[in-house]
């Protein structure tokens, strides 16, 4: 899994690509925790290049979301397609998170 971050006015865009599974999910958690510790609290996660996610990835997403919300931050998900979208639907995750079609749409939801 590769994680890239791009700072935008209203949030940090976190673009994940590759696989988010039992092996790589801890990397995602570690990265978000580091960003949180550095004071970043608004996130848009871009899943457009993510090929695979398992429940381990979903759990990482869930635990980091809790931490972000504990710090009064916010996290929006965008660009969930293909296999990843199916896993979201299978697990019922689609109803827990509001998913935005594009990163731009998600960014517009946040106060500038």
């Amino acid at each position, binding site marked *: 899994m590769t994680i890239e971050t791009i700072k935008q006015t209203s949030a940090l865009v976190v673009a994940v690509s590759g696989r988010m*599974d039992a092996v790589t999910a801890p990397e995602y958690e570690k990265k978000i925790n580091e960003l949180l510790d550095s004071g970043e609290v608004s996130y848009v996660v871009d899943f457009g290049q993510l090929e695979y996610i*398992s*429940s381990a990835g979903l*759990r990482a997403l869930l635990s980091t979301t809790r931490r972000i919300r504990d710090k009064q931050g916010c996290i929006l998900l965008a660009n969930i397609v293909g*296999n990843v979208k199916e896993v979201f639907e*299978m*697990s*019922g995750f689609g109803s827990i998170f509001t998913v935005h079609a594009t990163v731009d749409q998600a960014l517009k939801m946040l106060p500038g």
Partner: protein
Amino acid sequence: MITVEHLSKSFGDFSVLRDISVDIKQGEVISIIGPSGSGKSTFLRCINLLDRPSGGKIRIKGIDMLDRHTDVAKVRQKMNMVFQSFNLFAHLSVIDNLTLAPMKLLGKSRQEAERKAHELLRLIGLGEKYYCFPDELSGGQKQRVAIARCLAMEPEIILFDEPTSALDPTMVSEVLSVIRRLAKEGLTMLIVTHEMDFARDVSTRVFYLDEGAIYEQGTPGEIFGNPGREKTKAFIRRQQSLYQRLFSADFDLYSLNAEVESFCSRHLVPLKSRHGLTLLIEEVLQLYGTSSSFFPIDITVNYSEKTGQLELLLESPPGSANPLELQGEDSALGLAIIRNLLLDREFTHSDNRNILKLYLKNP
């Protein structure tokens, strides 16, 4: 009609057939199926002594084929064979291919032999090809001529050795339809074939050969609809399998994924199914990973090339629980995904192993 007792055949130290005993009645149509190298063609060739058996007995209409006083050539006149490679005489016209043996061996006049040959060629739809030479015919036409030549000897038994294997797929049906017609006319036939639909339609009985023996036999309904033994099932479903053993919860997921991916590529498993399989394996192993009592785990992936069905079998030590019955927040997400991926599942206990069988939905 044909009685085979304890037939065996070895080439040097290599045993091809082991202790085959069968009784074939007049009018039966027997399809002989099985993987390559299982001894199907050798079995057929032993029956008419093209290959001499190493042991056992063969009786054709009560005549002991292995008795040195038996006139084997005379028996063969009533038990003819159609080969994969046609074996027509290339220097003779179609009509001469059909009349040569009846004139030489049955003592028929040319006029009588030609009348019969014309009748047979019309029967197989090659009435216009009397004077053609084999090289002027397509593969399917050559094989139909080979069948007609066989019929010209008025046999009571015909042995077909993979009659369509050398043919272009477009020509298979024309040959099979001729054999189908013969089956309806009450000839006794033994057919070595890889055409499973044909074997199911045409046979009265099916022999499944594996490892040089008749592993299972039965009616087409039994063999194709409800085979009793594992290897027959795997063959009928054109099943491919991958085996892996995981010794502990610290197994290498990526190495396992690479094996699964390579297996799927080799057997052209559709991409959608591959994703489901990889996901299922990871999710299930996450559940198994919660306790060392589940290890070692033997994993088998079965893929039916015929139906596209994927199965995952996980065998764990006795006494271990069904991991799909684990409770808790951590396992809930994985279980939800597993439920969505599955068509069905079975968990069985035995003295030695616990077996979880998971059948994936076919996307």
